[in-house]
């Protein structure tokens, strides 16, 4: 039952093309004040949500057997942190899941960038391989997840591979498209200035395609995390996914929600790190464009 939900999430997420031209963020004259108001408003929304939920539970409008309650979620988190989980320390579970997600992310991004640029630059290669990539891309990833779990066992390997598969395609298509869209004038200029094909790739194609690649990284880390978690849901010895799975098996919704909260926190931190990286790598662009690229 729960696996089906997982399938749908992945299928839906994978079919959304990574946004290439994210909408511009609102600009105001007093930006710092605007930011402060925004931050307060966001905290306000969270408080309203949590309080509303707790009140709903207390007044029995919300059935806490199905939907948990904030105070008990908090209690669960507290126990996990100070007492430990049923599978060992919480730090260990987070570390395992992070390791799977980060490894999958790094490998998937590297493969996607290298192959995307190679196929974008080398026409014959693109013509040769594009049908295979299209077919591979149309396979529902969760089927592969089930396959990997059986083939590679309950250890880390099957989760990493699932994360790689999820990350790869988004990055690949963006890198490919970014390579195709490089300004022809810049290519001509570099060639006439004396650049070898390899240097053209490194010094013109790569930086130019980076705008596209970075846009896909935001979505991709989310995919890597999904890969790791779903892999663990399908069968694992440790990790946050297993923690959620065993809570579910015990009809402990507070445990499921506490797990989700932890995953959300990890995703937030990762998003922040990627934004820092993006700022650093896109220093050369006018500031408004960098701002707009941030969602």
């Amino acid at each position, binding site marked *: 039952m729960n696996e089906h939900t997982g399938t749908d999430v992945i299928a839906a997420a994978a079919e959304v093309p990574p946004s290439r031209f994210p909408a511009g963020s609102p600009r105001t004259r007093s930006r710092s004040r605007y930011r402060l108001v925004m931050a307060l408003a966001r905290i306000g929304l969270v408080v309203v949500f949590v309080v509303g939920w707790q009140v709903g539970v207390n007044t029995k409008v919300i059935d806490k057997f199905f939907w948990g309650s904030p105070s008990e979620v908090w209690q669960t988190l507290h126990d996990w942190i100070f007492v430990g989980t049923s599978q060992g320390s919480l730090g260990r579970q987070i570390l395992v899941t992070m390791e799977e997600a980060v490894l999958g992310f790094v490998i998937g991004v590297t493969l996607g960038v290298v192959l995307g640029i190679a196929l974008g630059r080398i026409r014959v290669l693109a013509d040769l391989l594009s049908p295979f990539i299209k077919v591979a891309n149309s396979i529902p990833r969760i089927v592969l997840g089930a396959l990997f779990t059986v083939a590679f066992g309950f250890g880390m390997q099957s989760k990493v591979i699932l994360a790689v598969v999820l990350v790869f395609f988004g990055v690949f298509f963006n890198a490919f498209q970014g390579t195709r869209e490089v300004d022809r004038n*810049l290519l001509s200029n*570099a060639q006439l*200035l*004396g650049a070898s094909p390899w240097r053209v790739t490194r010094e013109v194609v790569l930086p130019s395609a980076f705008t596209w690649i970075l846009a896909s990284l935001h979505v991709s880390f989310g995919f890597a995390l999904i890969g790791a978690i779903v892999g663990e849901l399908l069968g694992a010895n440790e990790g946050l996914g297993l923690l959620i799975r065993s809570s579910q098996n015990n009809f402990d919704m507070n445990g499921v929600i506490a797990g989700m909260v932890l995953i959300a926190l990890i995703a937030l931190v990762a998003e922040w790190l990627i934004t820092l990286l993006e700022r650093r790598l896109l220093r050369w*662009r006018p500031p408004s464009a960098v701002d707009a690229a941030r969602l």
Partner: protein
Amino acid sequence: MAKAIELVNVTKEFATPDGGTHTAIRDLSLTVESGEFCAVVGPTGCGKSTTLTLVSGLERPTTGEARTFGEPVRGINTSTGFVFQQDAVFPWKTVLDNVAAGPLFRGAGRADATGQARDWLRRVGLAGFENRYPHQLSGGMRKRVALAQTLINEPKILLMDEPFSALDVQTRAIMSTELLTLWDQTKPAVVFVTHDLEEAIALADKVVVITAGPGTVKAEFRVDLPRPRVVQEIRFDPAFVSLYEQIWEALRAEVAEAYARTTSLAGVSA
């Protein structure tokens, strides 16, 4: 000694989106001696930029042959320097790295390349802007970066496609004089495309008028004004004035022709 540039009866056709062909230049022949400064004028869309791409090897002629120093052009011709009509500096490199790119691509050491780049930035009046990115410069400054980026390779053939069109009149005059000084130092063969007839005469040894597209050479005029020239002052020279009238006479008919064509096309599609 072989001519620096020879275009022999070149024709260039492009495929159009509707499956036909569009002839950009037809049966065009042009020679430029080494060390000669050749200006090319002609109505818009007559094939001036296309002509330059044939010399640089970025495009191949459909028929005819392009030769540089007696050798047929095959593939990208790195002995040519090309200042493009559109912006072509690398937006992710600083001004210094943009200018140093040529020597680095050609195998120079880092220190040597940046040393040369600083020197060239000084010559084009951009000392102090080394660490800016192109988007932090004005259009005219970017054009000067492009100029330094090309000239630093000391090309034996220099192709310039309306290099000063983004500059205001005063800067343009200063840059023109500066260009002549730089040209005098290394004496490359120059093909300089411009819409400004005064600029063409003030700079060049030879002005070539191209017909309305498909372009071919309509007439060539020798400019025998003494050098060194001061671009700001030369246009008051009586010899300059009479040359201007002759060339304008040749050019006017072509410009009128090209204009009539675009307006009649607009009339048809309307």
